[in-house]
């Protein structure tokens, strides 16, 4: 892998606009790369899965599907999701940084990242974090890079936290239930999704506990579901968990949305997005910090030109 990283760094070099192309499943998030931007590919493949350490080292160009099948052999999984795991790459999912349906149970994407090996705008190899499940050695650049759309550094290899595959994961669907009461009544649910009419519940863990929760909390209003519902659209909004209560109840066919209860993420298409206002944008002082960071990490603006983290909420180019 050392060689793969070296050649990744060489391809990136130290001059000219450059971006890493993964599966291009979210290529337009935050804006399209400017024309003339060189596209490079990150190393591909699982380097090492260490089940006893619960970590996996993987090339950023590896698809989630390949990662899943390798780690599964050791009875573990990595808490990353994508709508198309056969195309989405680890590096792409981390660059975008937005989680899937199971965020309530799994936590945010960034909590799965332990170490990142990236290439700086100057073409140098940069390592942050460590291949350890607990570590506070130095500044946490991994958190800065996850969700940065590759605008601060380009990631070639990462070490991710693995978790034991639970005994069971089951889904349920019901109509007419109060999703907020359901979410509050369940102990550490994996997911509670609501479209204004139906509520889907994902539970993971020991079978006895799931059956117990289904009986005592979900009750007769719910029936087993094969899987969670499909995404209603490719846009998303970030609301406070309480603000979900005020979502426009036009769940019908025209403006569908699907909310992650207890989290605040709303998945939707453009029609619904127009009517779901984002929480107020950060203050100008916060954007000043963004500028100060960009000036230092990428003074020439060569990493993913045309993309900006401030464009994500607006849904630019998704």
């Amino acid at each position, binding site marked *: 892998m050392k060689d793969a990283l070296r050649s990744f760094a060489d391809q990136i070099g130290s001059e000219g606009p450059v971006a890493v192309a993964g599966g291009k499943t979210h290529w337009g998030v935050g804006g399209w790369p400017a024309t003339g931007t060189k596209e490079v590919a990150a190393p591909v493949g699982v380097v090492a899965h260490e089940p*006893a350490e619960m970590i996996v080292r993987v090339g950023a160009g590896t698809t989630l599907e390949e990662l899943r099948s390798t780690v599964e052999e050791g009875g573990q999984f990595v808490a990353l999701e994508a709508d198309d795991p056969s195309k989405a790459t680890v590096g792409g999912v981390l660059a975008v940084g937005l989680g899937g349906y199971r965020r309530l149970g799994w936590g945010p994407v960034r909590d799965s990242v332990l170490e990142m090996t990236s290439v700086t705008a100057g073409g140098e190899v940069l*390592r942050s974090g460590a291949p350890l499940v*607990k570590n506070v050695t130095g500044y*946490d*650049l991994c958190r800065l890079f996850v969700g940065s759309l590759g605008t601060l550094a380009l990631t070639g290899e990462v070490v991710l936290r693995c978790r034991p595959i639970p005994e069971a994961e089951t889904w349920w669907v019901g109509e007419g239930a109060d999703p907020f009461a359901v979410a509050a009544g369940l102990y550490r649910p994996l997911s509670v999704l609501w479209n204004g009419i139906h509520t889907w519940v994902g539970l993971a863990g020991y079978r006895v506990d799931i059956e117990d929760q289904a009986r005592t909390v979900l009750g007769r209003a719910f029936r087993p579901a094969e899987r969670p519902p499909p995404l209603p659209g490719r846009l998303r909004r970030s609301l406070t968990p309480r603000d979900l209560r005020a979502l426009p109840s036009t769940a019908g066919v025209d403006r569908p949305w699907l909310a992650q209860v207890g989290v605040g993420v709303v998945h939707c298409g453009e029609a619904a997005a127009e009517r779901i206002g984002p929480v107020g944008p*950060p203050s100008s002082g916060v954007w000043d910090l963004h500028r100060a960071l960009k000036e230092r990490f990428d003074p020439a603006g060569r990493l993913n030109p045309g993309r900006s983290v401030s464009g994500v909420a607006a849904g630019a180019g998704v």
Partner: protein
Amino acid sequence: MTTAALVRDLGVALAPDRVRAGALELALYERDASMLTGQASVVCFPTSAGEVSAAVRVCRDHGRPFVPRGSGTGLAGGATPLGQVAPVVIVTTKMNKILEVDSEQRFAWVEPGVLNLDLSTAVAHLGLHFAPDPSSQQSCSVGGNVANNSGGPHCLLYGVTSAHVLAMEVVLADGSVVVLGGIDPEPEGLDLRGAFVGSEGTMGIATRIAVRLTPLPPCVATLLADFSTIHDAAAAVTGVIAAGIIPAALEMMDATIVEVVEAYVHAGFPTDAAAVLLVEVDGLRGGVDVCTSDVEAILKAHGAREVRVAADAAERAAWWKGRKSAFGAIARIAPSYYLHDCVIPRTRLVDVLDEVGRIASSRDLVLGNVFHAGDGNLHPLIVFDRRAPGVLEKVHEAGRKIIETCVAAGGSLSGEHGIGIEKREAMDLVFTEVDLEAQKWLRDAFDPEGRCNPEKILPRGGSRCGDISSLPPGAWV
């Protein structure tokens, strides 16, 4: 400008009685709970974000660096004042109000000086708690937890502080105020909240923090296992994790610790054991029962002489009290201690503990181990009498060897106490110049003039060319 003028201006910004420059006060604030001593010029006690901002602006006008400080329980010298000119220490202890508790959305806004345990106690009636539980939780502040990204026994399952902080209001080094993160899950922009957590007071002062509150588990089982060798205990830890079980907590204490703790708090620990494991599993009844018997079987298979399950909440509390009193208890052996904090891959526990033992015994030092075994977070504890001639040198030498051993085993410098001053010169052991330079970019973006808690974390004061001033006595470089 003189210190008298500084005191006067800070007194105008705050109130004269909350600005102190007497010899006694300065001595009290010249270090944290580490052995690293610095020098403060003034100590002040703001009561609001507005006052923090005003104090920071006065510092700027006077060309003084400043050091944020919570309860001063940090162990890496993070709150020890260092600088080309003696810094102003800005203490948050008077900002200790819980501002808002939202039980529906399970978060609370708190001031930074709120003590960790006070927060959990205040929300217990709602069935909630603040999950990070450092052993110092009776006295450390939430602001300090955020700055150090602190951990604790139950962070094995629940995650360290970073996973429990949603947002914070921060006074930056120029006195301006920003809010990082948000109550909504995906605030626009970079995760500056995540970058701030763990920055050890070098990127600004958190003046208001939104922390996640976690439901108390409906069912808890605590197991106490004793082993006749440290080897068996360490192998049992690896065995539990390898079986795909992540307990809520998985702690180890060796014979040295068990003996003093037992004499001190009578927790009911077996004093003839070479090592004791404290394992807690929590969740819903059915799963806890399954997990308890699985863990018990694994512990026995790895040679546990006896595995006891706490009979009731009182027994559980006694065991945890024992675990968390270890640092107080060791005063029975000798007056001073040096508590180390390193992380290693969990599969290396056995050989690293062996080597750590040899490092101490070959120097005639008394060393105990009490640590978060489940995540490979070692806490070798060297106990000594600093009055004995030559002992300090030996203690520091042993400390350096322990760090080198952990790094050689694939580990890193700190699992939860941070780098501060203590380990900044060891950063070169785990990072390249490029890595450190990039960390400096982050720090500089927040504080371009380096006025917020200078000379911490990065080696050579964060400069590549080494224009570093003195190191305080006690730094082991």
